[in-house]
């Protein structure tokens, strides 16, 4: 087979080369280790030796021309008769003899040649090497002259100097920072200043409009003559929820399907556990998380994420559970829930709920789940849809148990039922997949022993 030879890279930093002399001419035989050409690199004139033997069939470039590494330079073949049309076409496809752009006079100092110019001929790795050697952007060695003055505060006020902890305390108490006097260096507001303001020590301190320092009030008393509304500043958490929910609801194609299950076995089972293991305090929600984990193991498509150009299927089942706090919603995660027993899941959920309430959750506690459960059953909700906790594919909305007429063996009876609604990202999960998952889940909850399978 004919071999197309290209301008070799003869040093780690070589970007272009010049063939100073051909040591063979067309028709010559060249053996392994023989020199085909002398090439001038950025460092030296080097001999270009052949790793293969063959007849020189074409010399594609003249001497003296600066060429990008990778530019076709010659064609070798096993015999003088062999068809070399393929190699020629390949050379042409490579852009043929590509002189380094712009073909600067060779003697001139090597101007920083834009590496992109030869993108077609130079492999990607070469770019990295080249860019390392000659940074495209010159590093500034001195600050730019006439430094621009610091921008004036946009609100016309000085930036408030405050320690991070004091800021946190003030935000939690909804205190107006402008009203606080800082006692630290340079007037920095420190924790002590906030605390004394809260305990009424500092007369200057006043709460932000509409809010009262101390305990949050359930209902704002209308102030005679005051405005008919109050503006509550967004907490960081509220901002995050707002952004995330709006993005999910508007960009993810949701669909929902609802399944009603009979809850007797679930409730009886939990009562039995409560009776035998009172210390464990297993809740219905614990059992649902466990069942979801077991069902996800069987339906990996539900346990995935849509990533634009691919779907990521997780090998672990990490179930997030929505927990409401004073600030808003957060979703701590039970990792590897499919591999954990009910007691452990229950204990972890309790610990996570406490941490969530105390705002002690670390980012690793609430990021990276593969599925979410949202349970509003305890608030008497009988059916609801949840917004997908992106980038996860599905979220399960669990409603409360209802005592209602049911048909059993053709006769009317009193039964206990519960609605569960799965919201799915249709880019990942289709209707049948979602339905099959819900079927598995329902069977597990209606017959909890199935989880042991």
């Amino acid at each position, binding site marked *: 087979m004919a071999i197309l030879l290209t301008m070799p890279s003869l040093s780690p930093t070589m970007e272009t080369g010049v063939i100073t002399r051909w040591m063979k001419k067309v028709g010559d035989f060249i053996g392994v280790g023989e020199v085909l050409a002398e090439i001038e690199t950025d460092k030296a004139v080097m001999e270009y030796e052949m790793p293969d033997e063959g007849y020189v069939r074409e010399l594609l470039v003249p001497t003296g021309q600066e060429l990008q590494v990778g530019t076709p330079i010659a064609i070798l073949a096993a015999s003088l008769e062999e068809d070399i049309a393929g190699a020629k076409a390949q050379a042409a496809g490579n852009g043929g003899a590509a002189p380094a752009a712009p073909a600067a006079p060779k003697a001139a100092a090597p101007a920083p040649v834009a590496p992109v110019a030869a993108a077609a001929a130079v*492999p990607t790795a070469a770019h990295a090497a080249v860019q390392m050697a000659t940074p495209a952007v010159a590093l500034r060695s001195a600050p730019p002259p006439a430094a621009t003055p610091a921008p004036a505060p946009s609100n016309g006020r000085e930036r408030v100097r405050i320690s991070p902890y004091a800021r946190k305390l003030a935000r939690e108490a909804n205190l107006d920072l402008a009203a606080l006097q800082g006692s630290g260096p340079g007037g920095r507001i420190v924790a002590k200043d906030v605390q004394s303001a809260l305990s009424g020590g500092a007369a200057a301190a006043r709460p932000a409009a509409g809010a009262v320092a101390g305990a949050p009030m359930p209902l704002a008393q209308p102030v005679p003559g005051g405005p008919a509304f109050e503006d509550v500043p967004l907490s960081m958490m509220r901002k995050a929820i707002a952004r995330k929910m709006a993005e999910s609801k508007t960009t993810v194609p949701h669909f929902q399907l609802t399944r009603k299950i009979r809850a007797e076995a679930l409730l009886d089972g939990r009562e039995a556990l409560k009776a035998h293991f009172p210390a464990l305090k297993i809740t219905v929600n614990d059992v649902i998380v466990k069942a979801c984990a077991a069902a996800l193991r069987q339906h990996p498509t539900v346990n995935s994420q849509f990533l634009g150009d691919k779907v990521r299927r997780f090998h672990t089942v990490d179930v997030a559970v929505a927990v409401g706090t004073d600030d808003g919603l957060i979703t701590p995660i039970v990792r590897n829930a499919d591999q954990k027993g009910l007691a452990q899941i229950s204990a972890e959920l309790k610990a996570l709920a406490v941490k969530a309430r105390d705002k002690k959750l670390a980012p690793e506690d609430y990021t990276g789940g593969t599925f979410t459960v949202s349970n509003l059953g305890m608030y008497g909700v009988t059916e609801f849809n949840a917004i997908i906790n992106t980038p996860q594919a599905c979220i399960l909305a669990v409603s409360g148990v209802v005592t209602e007429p049911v048909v059993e063996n053709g006769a009317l009876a009193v039964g206990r039922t519960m609605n569960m609604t799965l919201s799915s990202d249709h880019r990942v999960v289709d209707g049948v997949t979602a339905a099959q998952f819900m079927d598995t889940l329902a069977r597990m909850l209606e017959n909890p022993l199935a989880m042991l399978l």
Partner: protein
Amino acid sequence: MASLVAAPRKKPDAKPDELKTLTAGSLTRRQKQALDELGREKLVEMYRRMFLIRSFEQRCEQMYQQRKIGGFLHLYMGEEALGVGMLSAIQPDDYVVTSYRDHGIALALGLSPNVLMAELFGRVTGVSRGKGGSMHFFSKEKNLLGGHGIVAGQIPIGLGAAFTARYLESERVSLTFLGDGAVQQGTFHESLNMASLWNLPAIFIIENNQYGMGTAINRASAVTDFTLKAQGYNMEGVTVDGMNLLDCYAAMADAVAKRRKHPAPLLIEAKTYRYRGHSISDPATYRKKEEIERYQKVDPIQQVKSLLSELGWLSEADAKQLEKDVRQEVIEAVNFADRSEEPPLAERDLHVLAD
């Protein structure tokens, strides 16, 4: 004040020693004995390994030129007899450590060209999972304790392996390969001293290719006969022709035969020559073309090839076939490396610490 230049000494090539080549008619007694010990099959295999090193590295140069291989690339070409001869005389459980010029040593130890080429390509199938590269071939299986990137940094490691051999009373020996440049570093002297002090089975082999990077030995070392260094540490020192496969084999075979039962260190100076520059980007303009040609006339591979032919152990046709097979083996190594996966990103954080 006069500028500091090395005092005039005998230049290695001022009055070049006559370079000898192997011929069946003029073998020494020890060389004949080596032929008997090795036999036809083993000698042909040794020839094959030398040819494999040469072909492998020629292909490496090409792959470097095509940017499939990056970083540094220090070639062993010219020194094949040294690695193959000496490593054919040891046992698989002996320890070997060397410098960054490690391709030849790794291939001589019998490592597959596939895993070595994959290492050079930075693939996870490489002998060091793509995390070492050209200078850092390691193999637990072959007791190859590494190619090491700091000149003379590997010498104490070889000393440590010899210490283990003695500590465990295992009859193993430890081979430390180093270049002539490493002789000028402190660890060389410290390690020879300790090896001698404690009678460790440590064999230090100076691959004297006559240049430490671009500096000829007479410009770097006050003595150019390195066996003198052995005397300074009260240990045996021998010089061998590093271009001569049988001599390299015999020197190591004799060395290990004595030392397994009676541990003691040894310094071997093997005079050899590297055909290429210090590394791939060195055109070696500090050497005269005639000097290279002089050594190429006694090319270690050609020497063995013609000996095999003279002995009637390998016909011209069989040699051609062997060479063709080896070249094909190397092409397959390139294909293997090409097909192999890059290390998964998780590999970045693996092996920083052991469990």
